[in-house]
């Protein structure tokens, strides 16, 4: 037994949860979705800005949280950010991959943008890998195995991942 076994155990548990609790959501329509991903504007938030909307429930620092259905990385909610904010001193990636996740509160599917926060080293907290509807890397618009920090000024160094609601999928 070795020092990172616990990570693997956690990853395995998370994967198991993903399997048992969630059906496979409809995959996004590839290139059309990519075209709709905006280059997100960047602003400043106070740390106490509400991080969830009224129409949703759950713990944004848990890998089980509904928005994370196609995420891969460290949750910004555990890293000084939130589902829709990057930690202080990091730079959000303007482009990224998107997924479609079902909000259990209203039963609707939403397009989620998994923007990476960049320019500091890996946060290392709340690692989370779920692959509901993600695509191979030759279809990058839905691919979570890529480092999406590539579009930032600060280069490709990856700190954590957000899960921003872009809108309803239907």
């Amino acid at each position, binding site marked *: 037994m070795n020092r990172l076994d616990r990570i*693997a155990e956690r990853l395995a548990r998370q994967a198991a949860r993903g399997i048992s609790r969630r059906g496979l959501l409809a995959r996004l329509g590839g290139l059309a979705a990519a075209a709709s991903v905006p280059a997100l504007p960047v602003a400043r938030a106070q740390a106490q800005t509400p991080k969830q909307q009224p129409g949703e429930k759950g713990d944004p620092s848990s890998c089980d949280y509904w928005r994370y259905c196609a995420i891969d990385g460290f949750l910004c909610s555990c890293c000084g950010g939130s589902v829709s904010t990057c930690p202080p001193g990091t730079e959000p990636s303007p482009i990224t991959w998107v997924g479609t996740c079902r909000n259990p509160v209203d039963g609707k599917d939403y397009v989620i943008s998994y923007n990476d926060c960049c320019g500091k*080293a890996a946060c290392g907290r709340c690692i989370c890998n779920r*692959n509901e509807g993600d695509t191979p*890397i030759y*279809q990058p618009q839905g691919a979570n*195995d890529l480092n999406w920090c590539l579009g930032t000024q600060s280069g490709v160094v990856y700190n954590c991942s957000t899960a921003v609601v872009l809108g309803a999928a239907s």
Partner: protein
Amino acid sequence: MPGLRPLTLVAALLLAGSATAQLVPEELVVESLPEKLPPHWVWVNDVAFFNMSDGRAYLIDADTGRFMGMVSGGYSHLKLGIDRRGDRFVVPGTYYSRGTRGERTDVLTFYATKNLEPGSEIILPPKKYSGLPFVGTSNLTDDGRFMIIYNFTPEQSVTVADLERKALVGEFETPGCALIYPVGPRRFMMQCGDGSMQLANLTADGRVTLGGVSKPLWDLDNPATERAVRISESRWMFFTFDSDVIVVDGSGDQPKVVEKWSLVGPKPDGWRLGGLQPSAYHAATGTLYAVMHQGGRETRKDPGQQVWVFDVRTRKKIRQIDLASPATSIAVSEDAKPLLYAAQFGVPSLHVYDALNGQKLRSIDQLGQTLTYIQPAPVGQ
């Protein structure tokens, strides 16, 4: 022969008689390695996902379980470009002037197996793919002359470096296509976003010219992944989300599907190929090794604890290996007494099995943090 001085001292000591022996002063020396990788040595990539600027690869003697050495690879380095002769390799890596920020430099660094010292460099356009290393993210031509690296910025292109001239050839755009699958001495295929594949040729001096493009080769609802395995000079075996096998040949005017079958048959019962490097091919015997588990499509990257062994000519499952622990990456040594290597992302161990009878032989522990791609020694050239 300064390296032998300790031996000489030991001999003198033995003559003196061990009863009255006192330990003698030693000289500190640096280990050297064989000129070529022995058949059961293997390189294992650790992207160090929690500390990615410190990526590295470990060299293991799988027969003894000994750790033989390592190379540092920088941020998000790709798999090693190991020459078929096994005597040298190049490492594609990215560095920042301030560790995790500042000016980015992408560089190809030359190493000799015998001493693992960083040698010459070729500076690359700072566009190298950053992400998990897959079989197609970078590849040498079979003769070791050119290194081809996939770029994603998100514009897609490839960089070619000439390892003989030790110089950059250039960067070449691709038409919405990704990754590098060599299918001949100066030819490779790419996977495109619409499910087609694109041919590309290298000129004698390494410049890329585009060749034929296929029609879409798979259904985008059940696409082939980028976790493929090469099964001959011109053929690659791809696997779809639902574990269908699609063999694509790149020797003609355009990439062509030459075989289509399923790892899991008409009644899959939830079984699925899964992992980061989920399959391995033993060319001499035409044997495919596939890491299998049960789960939905969203589990296609998850570890498996069974390795199904197929005869690719008959397309029949001929054996099954029950792994001692789950794996996301496997590889098989190329020799006639093949070893099966298995590792799981997030677990710092490489496990070694007899690939023929499935018996676990040993584990090498304390190997970094996040193992990804396993590269056995090339054999036979």
